[in-house]
């Protein structure tokens, strides 16, 4: 089995591309750079496909399929190897990452065609692919952490791609640092796990964890702490409260980047990690609850902000945050497969939306403000159609992908009893409301962009449809966002949900929310909840239609009447300002004025120089005894005589120091 034996090929191809482009691409024409970039990613995509094919030929006991290549860190009883692993979960991620990644590469060739630093862009993008693949293929936490940090780096580079713009550079820095805060937790989580289990390899670790009984609710046992720490990392990477602040700013990067990294793949890494560590989370109900609540809260919170944003990418960014919230909600209520399912569908339609948005921006010549768009539907048909599909998908209109994934999440949320009977229902309600908001702001986006009258200056902006290289990926993604969800369709007529079934070996659930007995209940609830969901989605659609097509004046009036709320939402609840005022500024002030200027310069150095000063003063005093006057000298001799005589004749004047026994 060539590829499965040589899994390393899959991540290494993009790395190769990155290196080649990075080192030599500078002088090359775009064509060659494209060739390298797309070629390598494409190859790794096909390699992935081949790997999957081979994977299906494996017998169950061969799964998870682990290959150890070389040992990377080894000290004492600790070993972290460059070990790659494939199981069902990996397969999903692998396909999503390589597939979507490849499409976006293709798209970028069109989008970035006339940007400077073309080679740089693709080098970074390939580098990202490499690390992302490492992340999903890693067979132990440390290697996973490599990918984890690596994608952070790539995103830093890509967000700061337009480094001449201060805002871009700032955003990149912010992204990296906020992620680092998450990683802080992630590392501690790893340390704790290692202390507890003596290994960080998934297989061994989970084998040791499986027999453990779940910890009591509300009790901070080892596993709970470990899970919470891991989740801290996940929250950082996947932009959950309170660490979501970096993602909206990350929109400073080129749109394909936003699509690939900040929508489809990297930001979902957190969800992946939680799902990957489900064995631990299952046994830490407290952590699960936290995850669910945080996820749900983030979903709702981000959605509210999304309502009023006018930057097309910002809207999508907040919707991403909100969707990620959904995924965590799913994981939190134990519906890991649902979470992953949503991860996949979201990857499709959110990538689609972003790319379409990119196409719009491209068409508008860089304009991103919704308020300066409108009536584009006729001008850029294909973009409009694809984007509309994407919107339907995310809004959860059947039978598009979003509907199924979102539906299964809401269902599991409704059923969940973790942390009390009603918790599940509350979560469900919040989720549902979020769904409403989602469809509302998404359609608001659509209407503002494509309907109504043009709100831009015809003479300056020459709207034009994008090139093939951009439209083809859009089309493909549109198709995926339509059919992507049908894997879960069977659930409706009582058949087992293919996707869940496929992932079942991974998420072998101990207290089954997705097995046997529960199946029936689930099926019973399935349809009614689905109907409710659809209704909410449509309600959102209609509200948006009424506000932004029927009476375009209304929104402003609303904004006026709810001035306070509106402003707050518009300014993202002033969270950035809050962090600035509470964390950043005090820290800088403290460092400058207390640590550096006071402790270092004044106290420590002051003390050192002070001693020197003191000695010098004493030295000057000593010097002054050399008055040059012989009479005084004679007196000194007498003094000396008296000193000696005293020491010799009166023992008690002898210094007590001398005998340091």
């Amino acid at each position, binding site marked *: 089995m060539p590829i499965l034996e040589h899994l390393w090929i899959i991540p290494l191809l993009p790395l190769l591309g990155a290196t080649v482009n990075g080192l030599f691409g500078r002088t090359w024409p775009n064509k060659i750079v494209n060739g390298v970039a797309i070629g390598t990613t494409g190859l790794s995509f096909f390699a992935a496909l081949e790997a999957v094919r081979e994977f299906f030929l494996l017998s169950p006991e061969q799964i998870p399929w682990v290959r150890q290549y070389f040992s990377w860190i080894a000290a004492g009883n600790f070993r972290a190897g460059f070990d790659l692993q494939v199981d069902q979960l990996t397969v999903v991620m692998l396909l999503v990452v390589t597939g979507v990644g490849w499409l976006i590469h293709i798209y970028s060739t069109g989008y970035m065609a006339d940007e400077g630093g073309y080679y740089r862009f693709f080098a970074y993008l390939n580098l990202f692919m490499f690390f992302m693949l490492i992340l999903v293929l890693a067979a132990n936490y440390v290697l996973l952490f490599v990918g984890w940090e690596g994608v952070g780096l790539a995103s830093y580079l890509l967000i700061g791609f337009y480094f001449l713009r201060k805002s871009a550079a700032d955003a990149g820095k912010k992204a990296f640092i906020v992620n680092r805060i998450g990683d802080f937790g992630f590392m501690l989580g790893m340390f704790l796990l290692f202390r507890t289990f003596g290994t960080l390899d998934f297989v061994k670790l989970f084998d040791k964890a499986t027999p453990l009984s779940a910890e009591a609710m509300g009790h901070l046992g080892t596993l709970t702490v470990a899970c919470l720490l891991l989740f801290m990392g996940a929250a950082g990477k996947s932009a959950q409260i309170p660490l979501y602040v970096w993602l909206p700013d990350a929109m400073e990067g080129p749109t394909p980047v936003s699509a690939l990294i900040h929508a489809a793949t990297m930001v979902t890494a957190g969800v992946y990690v939680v799902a990957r560590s489900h064995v631990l989370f299952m046994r830490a109900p407290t952590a699960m609850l936290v995850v669910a609540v945080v996820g749900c809260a983030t979903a709702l919170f981000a959605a509210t902000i999304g309502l009023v944003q006018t930057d097309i990418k910002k809207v999508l960014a907040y919707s991403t945050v909100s969707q990620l919230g959904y995924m965590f909600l799913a994981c939190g209520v134990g519906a890991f497969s649902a979470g992953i399912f949503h991860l996949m569908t979201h990857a499709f339609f959110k990538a689609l939306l972003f790319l379409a948005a990119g196409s719009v921006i491209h068409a508008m010549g860089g304009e991103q403000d919704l308020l300066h768009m409108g009536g584009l539907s006729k001008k850029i048909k294909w973009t409009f159609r694809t984007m509309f599909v994407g919107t339907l998908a995310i809004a959860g209109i059947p039978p598009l992908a979003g509907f199924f994934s979102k539906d299964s999440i809401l269902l599991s949320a409704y059923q969940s009893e973790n942390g009390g009977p009603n918790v599940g229902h509350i979560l469900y309600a919040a989720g549902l409301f979020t769904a409403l908001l989602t469809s509302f702001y998404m359609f608001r986006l659509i209407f503002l962009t494509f309907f109504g009258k043009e709100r831009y200056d015809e003479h300056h902006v020459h709207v034009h449809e994008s090139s093939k290289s951009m439209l083809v990926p859009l089309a493909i993604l549109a198709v995926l966002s339509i059919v992507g969800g049908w894997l879960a369709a069977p659930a409706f007529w009582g058949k087992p949900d293919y996707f869940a079934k496929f992932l079942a070996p991974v998420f072998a659930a101990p207290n089954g929310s997705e097995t046997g007995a529960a199946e029936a209940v689930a099926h019973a609830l399935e349809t009614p909840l689905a109907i409710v969901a659809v209704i909410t989605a449509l309600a959102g659609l209609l509200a948006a239609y009424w506000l932004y097509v029927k009476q375009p004046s209304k929104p402003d009036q609303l904004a006026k009447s709810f001035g306070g709320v509106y402003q707050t939402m518009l300014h993202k609840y002033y969270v950035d300002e809050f962090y600035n005022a509470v964390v950043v500024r005090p820290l800088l002030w403290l460092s400058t004025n207390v640590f550096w200027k006071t402790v270092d310069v004044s106290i420590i150095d002051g003390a050192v120089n002070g001693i*020197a000063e003191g*000695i*010098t003063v*004493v*030295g*000057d*005093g*000593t*010097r002054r*005894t*050399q008055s*040059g006057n*012989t009479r*005084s*000298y*004679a007196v*000194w*001799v007498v*003094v*000396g*005589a008296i*000193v*000696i*005589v005293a*020491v*010799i*004749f009166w*023992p008690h004047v*002898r*210094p007590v*120091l*001398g*005998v*340091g*026994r």
Partner: protein
Amino acid sequence: MFPRTDDLLRALPELIWCGFAMLAMLLQPFVRSRHFFTVLALLGALGGTGAAFVAGATPGEGFYGLIQSDVFSFFFRLLIGLVAVLVVLAADSYLEREKLPFAEFYALLLFATAGMGVLASARELLTAFIGLELSSISSYILAGFRRDSTKSSEASLKYFLLGSFATAFFLYGIALVYGATGTTNLGRMDDADPNSNLLKLGLSLILIGLGFKVAAAPFQIWTPDVYEGAPTPVTALFSAGPKAAAFALLLRIFASVPAATHFWFWAFWVLAALTMFAGNLGALLQTNVKRLLAYSSIAHAGYILVAFAAVTFMANDLNGGATPAYAAVLFYLLSYALVKIGAFTIVSEIGGWGEKNLTLDDYAGLAQRQPVAAAALSLYLLSLLGLPVTAGFFGKFYIFKAAVNSHLIWLAVLMAVNSIIGAYYYLRVIVVMYMREASAEAMAAAPVRFPVAVNVVLAVTAIGTVYFGLFPNQVLNFILQPNLIAR
């Protein structure tokens, strides 16, 4: 009643030194050539030094127990002889430059050397006193040798007044010791009662007199002035010779006379502490290099006194516990003499006619103007500072060791503190030489070209410093013998 040959042999070095001194005086009216007298003095110094071997070859008491020829006196005679030789070489060009009467100078130098030799070998206090006077009086004259320089004459006067003042104390001490023990012969005092007040008083007064000679605080007070005023080669002599000789006598008294050991280390403890601080603190703000070195030599006297405290402390333990301490003193004196003579020689050469360039500013950028001189001087300074691959490092190390051996931990710590303070001003000189830029006219001026004799001095001292810094073995094993001081 002509003395026996052995006696003469045991006093041979001193006799030769005096002999050559008289020879110089006699020939002075007839020979005008400077080189002749330089060579003569050189022969004399070397001859005496060579005679030290003869004396060393015939150990034992001489002149009815007045002097003692043993390893100890052998070592010191060699040291003093070496000093004399080096000073002769260093003085040659100086005398030429300053137009000073060389015959007299060399004669006095040799007489002084003889006096020191007597001090080193004397075993009887009065003989020691005569030796002391012989060296001191010559020193007084030498200090004032630049007659027309007010500084020189002032130095001479101060040295003379205070010197004889201290000598009076010393003498009175002898008298009291004589009264207490009925003898002035150190060899016959073994049964003296250590608690007799008269003896204690006498020894204290002797300690004052010698403390003055070795510049122990608070008797160090004269040192900076005299060192600064005296002609630089003479300063070199002062800092190395008489100090060593006086230490030799101190060691003989306070190590070989049982009554003078026991609690006496307290006196040395105090003196050591005071001296170290007086020297280092005083040097801290000096801008006159010559004076700075004077203060530093005070500080080093302090370090040696630390070892003395150890000696007197250990002297009464029979299984030779004190030998390392003796070794420390002797080795330190050796390394110190080399370094000081080297340093002062450079100072005298850089000082130029009338000793004009003595301030730190005159040393600015010396490294570019005269790399060799700068390197040599920094080597000496580093040795004084006690950094490795210099003799000074081992010297300091052994003193530390002696102190810690005798559980004088705190004294060791004080010494540590002091060597840090010391490091500051030694570094300052190096910094000035290497890291400051020379003034324009200094750069313009042609570099001082060192005469051969001086280069020889520098070579000997520098090589010696490094050699003993790497292989102190021979010297140590030589001075580490338990019967160092014959009893």
